């Protein structure tokens, strides 16, 4: 009986995976279509890729997306780390207050956070554009960075930093040589979260960007009203890049591990 259950369980998992991957494979497949149709494959062609790479708006959208994600990641990681360390030495009331406020953008629907930014920028008569989009991205990324660093800080032994100070470290040295290395994993995880949040963001970008500045999501959103197979090519491109990155992330540690083991055996 157990075996039978296992079979239908396997079928269920396969069906779920099929559901998740079907549209992705579909879009990649149709990015090679020779006609405009989204339902009939008429023959192999690379014309949509050519059209994509010669489309200035798409190239710009990719550029804006990457630039925004890189800036937002760097700034939010630095600010998030500094603040998290500061908070770990602050009193409980301050800590509670900050984490409550940080919860707001994380628990609110994106669209509410987004219109809040939009009203804020326009009320201050700030012309929306790339800068406001980046500012908004930084603002919604910092809470996530802090969220991944705070638990690491909580498990730190405060005596180690004290010892470093007693042994003659300046506070900056203590920070750089003692605290930061111990919370490194949290910082890296936070940076990764920030990057993906920013890279994939649509709602907040839509409301905080200005005329002429689109990221990939906004471009896709604004151009799907008509049938436009270059979107297939763009989607496929994103799939390729992410697959390659994920393979590298998952395979490189495996190779390193294997090499490490081999080296151990040799020595």
């Amino acid at each position, binding site marked *: 009986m157990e075996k039978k259950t296992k079979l239908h369980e396997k079928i269920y998992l396969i069906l779920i995976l099929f559901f998740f991957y079907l549209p992705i494979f579909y879009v990649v497949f149709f990015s090679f279509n020779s006609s405009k149709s*989204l339902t009939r494959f008429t023959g192999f062609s690379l014309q949509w890729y050519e059209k994509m790479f010669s489309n200035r708006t798409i190239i710009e959208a990719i550029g804006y997306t990457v630039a925004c994600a890189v800036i937002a990641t760097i700034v939010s990681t630095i600010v998030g780390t500094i603040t998290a360390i500061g908070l770990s030495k602050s009193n409980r009331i301050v800590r509670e207050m900050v984490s409550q406020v940080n919860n707001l953008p994380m628990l609110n629907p994106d669209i509410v956070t987004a219109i809040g930014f939009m009203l804020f920028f326009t009320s201050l008569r700030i012309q929306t554009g790339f800068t406001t989009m980046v500012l908004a991205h930084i603002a919604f990324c910092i809470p996530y960075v802090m969220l991944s660093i705070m638990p690491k800080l909580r498990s730190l032994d405060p005596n180690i930093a004290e010892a470093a100070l007693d042994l003659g470290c300046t506070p900056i040295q203590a920070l750089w040589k003692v605290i930061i290395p111990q919370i490194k994993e949290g910082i890296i995880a936070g940076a990764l979260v920030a990057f993906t949040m920013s890279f994939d963001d649509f709602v907040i970008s839509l409301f905080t960007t200005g005329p002429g500045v689109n990221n990939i999501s906004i471009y896709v959103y604004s151009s799907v009203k008509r049938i436009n197979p270059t979107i297939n090519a763009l989607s496929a491109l994103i799939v390729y890049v992410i697959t390659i990155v994920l393979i590298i992330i998952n395979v490189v540690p495996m190779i390193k591990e294997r090499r490490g083991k081999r080296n151990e055996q040799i020595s």
Partner: protein
Amino acid sequence: MKGFSKMAYPYIVWMVIMIILPMLMIVFYAFSKSGNDVLTFQFTFQNFVRFFEDSVFPNVLWRSLKMAVATTVICIALGYPCGYIIAKLKGNNQAIMILLITLPMWINMLVRTYAWRGLLGYVELSSEARVYVGMVYNFLPFMILEIYTALSKIDPALLVAARDLGANDFQAFLKVTLPLSLSGVVSGITLVFLPAVSSFFIPKLLGGGQYVLIGNLIEDYFITSGDWNFGSAISFIMAIIILISMYVTRKLDRTAKEDEI
């Protein structure tokens, strides 16, 4: 060491400006007359009266809530067995399955939703059904991951104990596994219900513009018609409803936990 606490000060200032002020702006706009400015503020309930006076707006709100609840229920129904099966797999296979489920999540939600447009061209579906496909597709992975995490934390010894004490498989599941996994279901609900209520690109991309949810209303009033006051009032109403439902869900979770003890 106490001096380090100063490092948090700049962010506290930033937080007030970039998180609290924008939220206050929504409240401010929701309660002021259109065409108003921060300087010439005139308090009014007019935007809220307008929302509830016309049956169109409450109907859209009601439809969005129904849709979000139904999406959440479907995600639990499909996601629970999936999380359960994964949690029973061997360690290595578990990791592979979780990787396979998280992989598509790395691809932009909008791109993945767009991908369904071609596929759905083969079947005759109402725009409502198409929107459901998009919603479940986008939010199911969150539910699976939350339920899997809760289930994988359960100590297998508890199930052995339940069996030794005479429970059959079904009873052991009902009395041990299910209550202990409820916290995962609750966090899954938060991750599905919240974006589902406010989603506006899924109905727009898959519903063909005929299917309007509350998020679409907000988008229209902000981007197309530029009536920010009314748009803010709609967002305010939505945010309040979401807060209440989150509060109720958490409360249910807590009572469930107390029952265990």
